[in-house]
């Protein structure tokens, strides 16, 4: 988050970030909790809604920007990250949020994840990981468990799931956390922390699909099995320990911050700004660009 983003101009409450649109989600869908947690996190940060750009792909979860009062952009399937990057680079003063499903982020859009991490664009990316394709009615997703029977895997899945946490840690993500709407306070807190982190922040949310998801993925089951990393005395500055814990994805439900780089590296948007500042005195007006074609200077 850029320095400008820290100044609270007025006091905001969660209500200020809730739009009038009525969510199309099935009653009980985990995404309701996610959007509530986002309202709370944004209220704590205190940026006015018009200084926030919230970008998503396509899917049930990707409807989320419309339910906030921020400038929203519900784009195309799998491409929230490239578009969000363009927004942040065009105007680094904005608070940029990205969101979408596990299919959006790790199947069709999976190729972009590595690159947003490499560039360390200062934004927060929230994946609502329900281990299924919700919008298209229940097909296999890249995080579905092995053997899962769905409409597109009638005889059981023959693939192993992507591990989103290890995936982003492996590419060098500097802020990696996991939450669940089963713990609203915890979820709102890690989203806020992610936004405050000066660089790319990845948050995996175990957001259950009540319609196509499995019984043991629902909020009730999650409540019983979740363990906070804090209670386990995990040191979020320790990347190897974070990777070790992330191995348990799919078996254990750890929540909280897996990894936060104690000495965050430079962001692409920050470096771009510096370069612009350093080079701006080389020219007087846009017409100067034509000097390269002049044979007599």
């Amino acid at each position, binding site marked *: 988050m850029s320095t400008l983003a820290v100044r609270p101009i007025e006091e905001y409450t969660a209500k200020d970030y809730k*739009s009038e*649109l009525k969510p199309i989600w099935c009653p009980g869908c985990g995404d309701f909790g996610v959007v509530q947690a986002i309202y709370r996190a944004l209220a704590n940060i205190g940026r*006015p*809604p*018009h*200084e*926030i*750009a919230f*970008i998503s792909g*396509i899917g049930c979860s990707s*409807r989320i*920007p*419309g339910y906030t*009062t*921020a*400038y*929203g*952009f*519900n*784009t*195309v399937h799998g*491409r929230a*990250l*490239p*578009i*969000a*990057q*363009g*927004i*942040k*680079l*065009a*105007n680094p*003063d*904005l608070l940029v949020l990205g969101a979408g499903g596990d299919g959006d982020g790790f199947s069709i859009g999976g*190729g*972009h994840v*590595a*690159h947003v991490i490499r560039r360390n664009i200062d934004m927060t990316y929230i994946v609502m990981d329900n281990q299924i394709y919700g919008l298209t009615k229940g097909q296999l997703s890249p995080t579905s468990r092995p053997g899962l029977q769905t409409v597109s895997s009638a005889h059981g899945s023959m693939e192993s799931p992507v591990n989103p946490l290890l995936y982003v840690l492996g590419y060098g993500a500097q802020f990696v956390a996991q939450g669940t709407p089963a713990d609203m306070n915890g979820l709102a807190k890690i989203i806020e922390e992610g936004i405050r982190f000066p660089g790319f922040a990845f948050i995996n949310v175990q957001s259950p699909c009540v319609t196509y998801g499995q019984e043991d993925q629902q909020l009730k089951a999650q409540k019983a099995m979740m363990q906070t990393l804090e209670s386990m005395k995990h040191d979020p500055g320790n990347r190897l320990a974070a990777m070790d814990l992330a191995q348990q994805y799919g078996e254990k439900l750890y929540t909280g911050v897996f990894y936060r780089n104690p000495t965050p590296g430079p962001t*692409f948007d920050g470096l*771009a700004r510096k*370069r*612009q500042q350093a*080079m*701006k005195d*080389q*020219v007087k007006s*846009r*017409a*100067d*660009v*034509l000097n*390269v*074609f*002049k*044979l*007599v200077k």
Partner: protein
Amino acid sequence: MNTDLVIGMAGSGGDGIVSAGESLLTAAALEGYHGVMAKSFGPQIRGGESSFRLRICTQKVLNTGGTLDIAVALNWDDFLKFGGELPVSGNTTVIYDANTNVAPDKIPLVGVTPAEVLMVPIEQIARETGGSDRAKNTVVLGLMAGWLGIGKEKMLAGIRKRLAKKGAETVDKAEKAFHAGLAYALEHPLKRTRTMAEPEKPTAKFVVDGNDLCAAAAIVAGCDFFSGYPITPSSEIMHFLGREIWKYGGTMLQAEDEIAGIGAVVGASFAGKKAMTATSGPGMSLKTEMLGLATIAELPLVCVNVMRGGPSTGIPTKGEQSDLLQAAFSAHGDVIRPVLAAISAEDMFPITIEAFNMAEHYQTPVIVLSDQEVGQRKETAEPIDVSTVKLVERQRPSEKELERYARFRLTESGISPISHPGMKGGNYLASGIEHNEAGAPTANGEIHAKMNEKRLRKFNPLKRRRDLFIVEGSPDAPLALISWGSVAGMAIEAHRILVSEGLKVKLLVPRLLFPVSEEVYQDFFLSIKRGLVVEQNHLSQLYRLLRMYVDVPRGIETLAKSGSNPFTPMEIVDRMRQISLALQRETQHVPSEV
């Protein structure tokens, strides 16, 4: 005295062929000559054969001409690989290196007797004066300065400047090589003189290529963001902006693929900035989903396609005009996206500015079609006066409109004022999903129909932009010559020749290809009985496109060739002469046999 010369030269990669051509063109441009230079390479990544064709004229010129006036072969193997790109005729002076050990009457050119064949000890002179065979190209420059009578001082100055870093000895050797070539030329005058007449105006020109000029135009237009993925022959646009855009407060992002490239551009545009991406065929295929998004979200952006031979990887290093139908119709859904095409490297400046203006005004992606020739050939251009450039900005909502803002308001023009993040009161949801005036997602058929209508209706004024068409010739002429893009440069010249021969021919060159301006074509076709559409693709794509929208007279024929098969102005002239004869026969009174 000559007013127009075409010089072709070929050799192997290390011979500095292209840099020799550029030196000659630069020297000529400094003296006020006009010129166009195309370079061509074999498929090898480095080394391999390379060539240039350079046309130097005392007047404005739009193409690299037909058969060569002067052919220079440093070796015959490489020269012959360029086939029809370096055509030798009975009017050609052929110069080749004596080190090839081929007698002048044994040169391997089949079916043609050149006007003159000269064996010159190019390599030997290079070794004796320049100290190595690497000075061969400098010797050739000396020869050209002697035989053409141009550029001597300018080329010497160029040599000094280019080699200054390498020390006085290197400069000295190069100068010697140049002078030796010059002396050789003066001692061996050509049978057919190749001396150039004075240029129209002795003022220095710019030397440009389409890719660099496109990038520069973007900066002048106010572009603050570029993102793309490397692909031949478009990458120079990215390279240029990667060097320059920062100085103007902008950002260049080399994306991970073409989808991300245009995605970032869509994002930057949403954030309120003018933004552009550039690519070629395969990359264009990847970008199409994002073009659809920008269309329905009504976001301005410019997408340049420097066309190459397709489909798929095709011939990446050679131009073709085979992406016109893709540009017009790559969308799913009912969509209009403006398509502009530049006819020359110089034309890339106004076309790119126009593309930004159009994108911002109509809140739409605009596709600019260039091709390998326009993008990469070097050309002289008149110095550009930026004070005459008019820029258009997107329509922003007023304070009052922001009180109850509806992003997609159904206005009379179909253009709705657009806000951007950071603008208080302008908050809205942009989406690829159909939406109502306020931006809320909807699946309602009535709203969808209204929004489609709005998004299409807003382009109506575009179809009346007659200034985006080049029309020449007498209005009642019965013959038509139509062409577009880089090939139009050939058609324009062919048209002048035909008119000077007394043929009644009208020329039409659209620079706005889509939407098809029905009125412009209907008016043009009123007097037309027969004619020709000339384009560099196999399917006759412009001709087919016109037939979709316009009553094209039945007498219109096509001259369409796949890429890497160059046209010449004379070939168009010949075909038009035949068409004219056919028209005469048709209109002569033939007594009917009852």
